[in-house]
């Protein structure tokens, strides 16, 4: 019995592995194709400045996507990230304008704290209100954005009002790699390892696969959900600081509509919207693909307005492909199961 059971288990695992790997491989191939086509039609696409722009854009989107992936893996969603980014960017911008001596590390911490507060509000509302995350975070999307407008009014923080040290942080590199990219990589690696190898991470996947089963297995489902929203909020806050450092100009509209790009990056990266599967690596690859598409459009002199339509199309394509693959895997497993019995 066990002899029959064991190969079945390993086969199942390897076929699932293959599917997941195929997804990330697919993104890499799409990316390579896109870069090749764009570079052939316009070699300027591979210039140092262009690559730098793509990497900096990816860094901000990837930090958001990692946080979103953590939430989506638990079968929730956080639509408020764009607004949280805006609030954090404006908070940090105002603080730096009024206290030019503030070290960059503090700016990062303050941004992450602002985000963590917003995230925990989301988490608490979802957990104790017993309300779908979609509705709560759609509400906080507008509430947080409204608060930022209320506070900022029409004022804008310009680059010349920000301390030079902070702007330099947005441009400086270490061993040729921009600081922003290093921070994004750090976030990615730490989150990736925690999700893959630590008990907390596995519990998040378990919650997403089946909340009831996770609860019966003794996982503190509510506390983990609040934790996931807190992480997503904190990372959105951190991304706000990176946004401020990169662009130097901040108004109340900063990051409007980012949530769509973030959700797109995450689902394109293979994180299932039903929760329980996907990796932050995939989400980061999704962020890279989306950012590259954005710059490729500019280089190929295609109407910039296509960007948003492509984002929407990619979301539909990704979830549609996921469903087809899942159905095929399920059919294959069923077939194999019937052979064994």
């Amino acid at each position, binding site marked *: 019995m066990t002899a029959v059971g064991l190969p079945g288990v390993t086969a199942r695992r390897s076929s699932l592995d293959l599917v997941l790997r195929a997804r990330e491989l697919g993104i890499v191939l799409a990316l390579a194709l896109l870069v090749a086509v764009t570079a052939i039609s316009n070699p300027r696409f591979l210039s140092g400045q262009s690559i730098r722009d793509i990497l900096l854009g990816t860094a901000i989107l990837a930090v958001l996507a990692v946080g979103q992936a953590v939430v989506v893996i638990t079968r929730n969603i956080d639509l408020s990230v764009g607004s949280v980014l805006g609030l954090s960017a404006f908070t940090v911008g105002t603080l730096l304008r009024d206290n030019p001596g503030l070290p960059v590390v503090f700016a990062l911490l303050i941004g992450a704290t602002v985000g963590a507060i917003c995230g925990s509000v989301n988490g608490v509302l979802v957990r104790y209100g*017993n*309300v779908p995350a979609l509705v709560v975070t759609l*509400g906080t*999307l*507008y509430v947080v954005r409204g608060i930022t407008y*209320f506070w900022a009014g029409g004022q804008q923080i310009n680059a010349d009002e920000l301390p030079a040290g902070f702007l330099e942080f947005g441009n400086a590199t270490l061993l040729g790699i921009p600081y922003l990219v290093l921070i994004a990589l750090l976030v990615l690696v730490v989150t990736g390892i925690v999700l893959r190898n630590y008990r907390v991470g596995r519990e998040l996947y378990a919650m997403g696969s089946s909340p009831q089963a996770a609860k019966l297995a003794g996982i503190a489902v509510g506390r983990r959900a609040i934790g996931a929203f807190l992480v997503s909020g904190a990372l959105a806050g951190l991304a706000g600081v990176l946004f401020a450092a990169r662009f130097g100009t901040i108004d109340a509209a900063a990051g409007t509509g980012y949530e769509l790009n973030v959700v797109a990056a995450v689902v394109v990266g293979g994180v299932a919207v039903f929760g329980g599967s996907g990796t932050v690596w995939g989400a980061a690859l999704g962020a890279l693909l989306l950012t590259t598409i954005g710059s490729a459009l500019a280089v190929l002199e295609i109407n910039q307005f296509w960007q948003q*339509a492509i984002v*929407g*199309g990619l979301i539909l394509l990704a*979830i549609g492909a996921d469903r087809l693959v899942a159905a095929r895997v399920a059919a294959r497993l069923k077939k194999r199961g019937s052979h064994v019995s």
Partner: protein
Amino acid sequence: MSADSTALGADRTSGLAGRFANWNVAIIAVTVVVLIVAAATVQNFGTSQNFGFLVLDLLPIALVALPMTLVIVTGEIDLSVASALGLSSAVMGYLWNSNQPIETIIPLCLLLGAVLGAVNGFFVTVLGLPSLAVTIGTLALYRGLAFVVLGDSAVADFPALYTDWVTGSIGGTSIPNVLIIIVALAAVFGVTLHATPIGRAVFAVGASEQAARFAGVRPGRLKFWLYVVSGLVAGLAGVLWTLRYSSARADNGAGLELAVVAAVLLGGVSIFGGKGALPGVIAGVLLLASLQNALRLSDVSNEALNVVTGVLLIVSVLAPNLANAVRGSLQRRRHRTDSTPRPERRH
């Protein structure tokens, strides 16, 4: 013991029926109070001219909220409505710019809306994907296409015959013309939901899709057509929006989905499906629109208004759950006090 349990059961059902009546009555009462307070305290709120503006302001929310109610009662959601409205408006402007007659443009825009809804319906019912993810995708897609069609330019100078009708009022009265559309559609949707087999199927699918299927309802087909209707009405709202402001823009109606979902949930429709009533939704729309109107008259900025809408959305989903929790804990306490004397009796 058996008498005890039936009494408890009866108590529960009357509580359930009572809860719905309560929510509908409560939301209508709150709406009336808000209207009275606003009329008394906010300058110009009670004027007949402002009534016209109020109706025009709530027009798109009211129209889109009607099919949205049915969609949410079946347990799904459509977040793409505002983008479908924007795309309909952009296409209207594009066709007007290319010198098409308005009489062909309007039917085309309605058809476009229905097609956009059918795309949602296809992904949700044929491919079986979660409506939340699908309509977030089409939210981005339709808005993006609207910008592709019209860019960031605006098209104006639509025929005065049409724009005047939309902004005008009936005869010499101060009743806006568009109120006819709202009342007619509300009647159609209200009767469909509450007095036809379609409406009963909508509730049945929302309560339990599997049970509905066993009862002979085809949930997939029902949901598909609901999405088509939702898109069609969003297309109509796009046409009316364009005529009202005499301006076709790609960003028309951006963010409207928030107000629509807020109004529907405020009206007592359960986000989990299976429960809701159209009169409550109408009251929810009126409450939301009059609050926004009163605050706008008090010089509150549009962005700050979004805070109010967002808070209302969260409160409207939290309130029923909190009420349930409170009722549950009260009932538990009652059980505890009921059960304590029993062991003593045995002694």
